[in-house]
């Protein structure tokens, strides 16, 4: 599957001029509120007709203003999960799930059945319920299932977790991960949360004021994403659990990491997001220090963030790590690209993103 977008759309004072190609897996559209993310997915989904441009899935044009092509939303076979779940209030959960089935005949798209989707999302006990009686998290899971059962070629998720609290988000994230890894349907995911993007994205498209400013793999792009709260994404595996101290030990390219106990089996892939302001640098391997994680690496670049601060990009055995230091520290340690350093990360600063 490939999704090519190149559109130019004006609404009032706001101009959306975006161009990107989404690779398989989960592509995150990341940016602040008002950067045009939702307008862009609405254009892909067929809810907004762009002034000019082209949208194509697998080479088939859905919108091509030059050739006068506009495929209406109901013929696009693109699943859409909205921020507000938009379940039909007069239909049961089961009938909501099956709503798209009648229109999904014919080839192409994901091969899914009710049983498979119900298992994937853990909603079997809700089938006979009324949408109004579901919690926010349950509603979103049903909405995701409903989109999948319409056999989409591509699923759009517009901030599906934004209206939920922290606990409900944690409840849904694993299901979206399973969807990305097991169902094999490409996902275009809108978010302004670094944590969500770090955890879910394969590819990141960064949007700023209506334009795409960067596209690429999450490990490369996310460190550049947010100047005020930057960080780095590390892919890791659970290697063991330390029951005595309620810690989990992760194996990553950068080295071993000890993090607060995770609810994941040994061997499970996890992603950790390390904020740059949680990373200290030392020229020698520090000893007698409370922090449990010390990773060795090399400085790649030093970018001034503000007049008093700088972002240090490290290469830790191939993995990227970001550290935010004061300009004074950079000067005192005489940090420069190429220099070998030790990055120190407190275990308590890890959050399961």
């Amino acid at each position, binding site marked *: 599957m490939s999704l090519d977008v190149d559109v130019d759309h004006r609404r009032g004072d706001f101009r959306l001029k975006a161009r990107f190609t989404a690779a398989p897996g989960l592509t995150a559209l990341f940016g602040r509120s008002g950067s045009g993310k939702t307008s862009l997915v609405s254009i892909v989904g067929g809810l907004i007709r762009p002034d000019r441009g082209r949208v194509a899935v697998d080479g088939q044009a859905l919108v091509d203003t030059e050739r006068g092509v506009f495929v209406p*939303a*109901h013929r696009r076979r693109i699943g859409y999960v909205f921020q507000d779940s938009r379940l*039909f*209030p007069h239909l049961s959960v089961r009938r909501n799930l099956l709503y798209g089935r009648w*229109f999904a005949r014919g080839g192409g798209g994901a091969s899914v059945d009710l049983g498979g989707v119900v298992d994937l999302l853990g909603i079997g006990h809700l089938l006979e319920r009324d949408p109004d009686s579901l919690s926010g998290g349950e509603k979103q899971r049903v909405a995701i299932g*409903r989109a999948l059962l319409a056999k989409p070629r591509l699923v759009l998720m517009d901030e599906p977790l934004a209206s939920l609290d922290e606990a409900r988000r944690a409840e849904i994230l694993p299901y979206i991960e399973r969807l990305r890894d097991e169902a094999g349907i490409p996902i275009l995911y809108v978010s302004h949360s670094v944590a969500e993007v770090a955890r879910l994205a394969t590819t990141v498209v960064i949007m700023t004021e209506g334009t795409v400013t960067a596209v690429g793999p999450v490990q490369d792009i996310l460190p550049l994403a947010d100047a005020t709260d930057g960080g780095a994404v590390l892919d890791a595996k659970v290697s063991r659990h330390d029951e005595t101290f309620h810690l989990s030990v992760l194996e990553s390219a950068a080295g071993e990491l000890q993090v607060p106990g995770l609810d994941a089996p040994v061997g499970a892939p996890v992603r950790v997001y390390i904020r740059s302001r949680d990373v200290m640098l030392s020229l020698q391997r520090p000893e007698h220090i409370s922090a449990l994680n010390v990773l060795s690496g090399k400085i790649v670049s030093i970018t001034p963030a503000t007049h008093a601060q700088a972002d240090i990009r490290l290469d830790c055995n191939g993995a990227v790590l970001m550290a935010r230091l004061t300009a004074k520290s950079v000067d005192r340690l005489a940090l420069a690209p190429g220099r070998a350093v030790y990055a120190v990360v407190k275990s308590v600063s890890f959050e399961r993103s």
Partner: protein
Amino acid sequence: MTAEEWTAVRLSLLIATTATLFSLPVGIAIAWLLARGQFWGKSVLDTLVHLPLILPPVVTGYLLLLSFGRRGPIGSFLADEFGIVFSFRWTGAALACAIMGFPLMVRAIRLSIEAVDQRLEAAAGTLGAHPLWVFATITLPLCLPGIIAGAILGFAKSMGEFGATITFVSNIPGETQTLPSLIYTLTQVPGGDAAAMRLTLVSIAISMLALLGSELLAKRIGARRQTA
């Protein structure tokens, strides 16, 4: 009650039911156009629909007589081509009632369509449903209480319609003499007070039954929605 009175009651029910059933599909279509449509002349259509509410009923009846009468342009065409005659027939009374009740019906349905969340309709579209199918499976069920309310309003208005009916199709016993027409006739003759009072009570009873029926229906729909 006398045979004449029973005939008037039966005729009124027949006319009101016919008027409601025939105007309902048109009413839903016009209400949808006014609620969701964006087209040139929408305010003109809106005004036309509401006209019978503002005009004196006699004027509406007279306009009907001019256009749908035997010599009227529409009336002569329908009579010659299809054999459909409205003037001085109960069908004409039904037409007059349908037109007089139409603004009330459309208003109720339009409000309920406007209350249906368009974001739900958009969601149904992304699931592959054609706009007509979206209307049938999402919009229509969600605005059903409004449609029932509109139908009842139209029916009640038809049961009470007097001015336009008597102007258009006169007051012929057994053909166009509805309940209100008969009550009017009875009040014009000496000794008709008792009969007029009887029919007034019948009229009140029918109106209340219609209202009660709509309440029950709305409740059942609500209950079905809970268990569905």
